[in-house]
């Protein structure tokens, strides 16, 4: 059986997560918000610009900090999805191997409103994943125009988290659980045709 991405996307979209009587969305062991893409883009890029304006010593500080925030996001949310009853019932039966699980996680990501994502290639050592419409590149271009460097920090962190969740041994016990890292090798904010993320083990 191959991964039926459309079925997964339809199922997650069909769940229609929304606030309960307390205004809380309690799903996949996390509290979710159906939040404004514009808010995340404004605070991330204003933060980046403020650090750049502060001087040479701080100009490049925003990138690793925002990527790590993305990694924390991905590691917690998608680990919760991976361990959920919904995964066990719908997606696990489609998976023949760990590579299929990466494709399954990507299918769930496609239901979160983050744009269209596709796994280009995956092995236990490397993941290449692309999107034609990340909300980060859309937001950056709208506010600031073309960038000299890649700007999809959340997405970079999340891409790394997928490999750490699936291919890292003993995720809970291993203090080096953060063993994969990602680079955004192409970005629409640099006027590339798509955004591409390459994930490999840290050396």
């Amino acid at each position, binding site marked *: 059986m191959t991964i039926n991405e459309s079925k997964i996307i339809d199922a997650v979209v069909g769940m229609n997560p929304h606030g309960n009587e307390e205004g*809380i969305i309690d799903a996949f062991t996390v*509290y979710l918000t159906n939040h404004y893409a514009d*808010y995340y883009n404004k*605070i991330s890029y204003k*933060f980046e610009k403020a*650090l750049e304006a502060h001087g040479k010593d701080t100009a490049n500080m925003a990138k690793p900090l*925002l990527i790590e*925030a993305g990694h924390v996001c991905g590691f917690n949310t998608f680990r919760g999805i991976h361990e959920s009853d919904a995964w066990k019932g719908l997606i696990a039966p489609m998976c023949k191997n760990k590579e299929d699980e990466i494709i399954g996680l990507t299918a769930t990501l496609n*239901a979160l409103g983050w744009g269209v994502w596709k796994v280009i290639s995956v092995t236990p050592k490397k993941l290449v994943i692309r999107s034609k419409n990340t909300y980060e590149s859309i937001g950056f271009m709208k506010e600031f125009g073309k960038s000299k460097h890649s700007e999809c920090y959340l997405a970079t962190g999340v891409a790394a988290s997928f490999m750490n969740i699936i291919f890292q041994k003993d995720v809970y016990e291993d203090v080096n659980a953060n063993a994969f890292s990602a680079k955004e090798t192409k970005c629409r904010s640099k006027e590339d045709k798509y955004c591409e993320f390459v994930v490999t083990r840290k050396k």
Partner: protein
Amino acid sequence: MEKLNISWNKKTNQRLVEGKSLVFHCHHYNCFLQRTLEDAKIVDGKGIQIESAREVAFEQFTKAFEDHQKLKTAKQKLKFASNFFQIAGFGLIDFSKTNTEGGTVTCPVSHYAKGWVAKWGKRKTPMCYFNTGWIAGVMAAAYNKELYDYDVRETKCEAVKGKGCKFEVTQR
């Protein structure tokens, strides 16, 4: 009852409200990102977050109130906005003790405070920066004011002590 229409675009995998993208994110990201900006003392991380929330809320609800002409009074508009706050998972919010000059807004439940306490426990200072800015933007849209016409200060925060959060709104 009037409600904001959140639609799913199957071609672009985007969830849209009033033409703007909504994206699902968890309390881990929301709180970690907030803390990242807050901890960088050389920039005004708190101000960046409050003002960004003000801008997105004002833009969203200025357009929404134009599109929903059945909403005639500020009370109706604020109830409409508070329904979105709840559906989006931000918590519960009550504008009933406000008027055109300001007033008191309460959040019996706040996603940000709840998420922060779940991750790190209680803290020393109020932390619902998103709610603070959102309230300022929504009040300005509902009472037909300009973007920066209201100041909002969180005077009680569940992430510091007790239950629920409170915000004082004053007109500039």
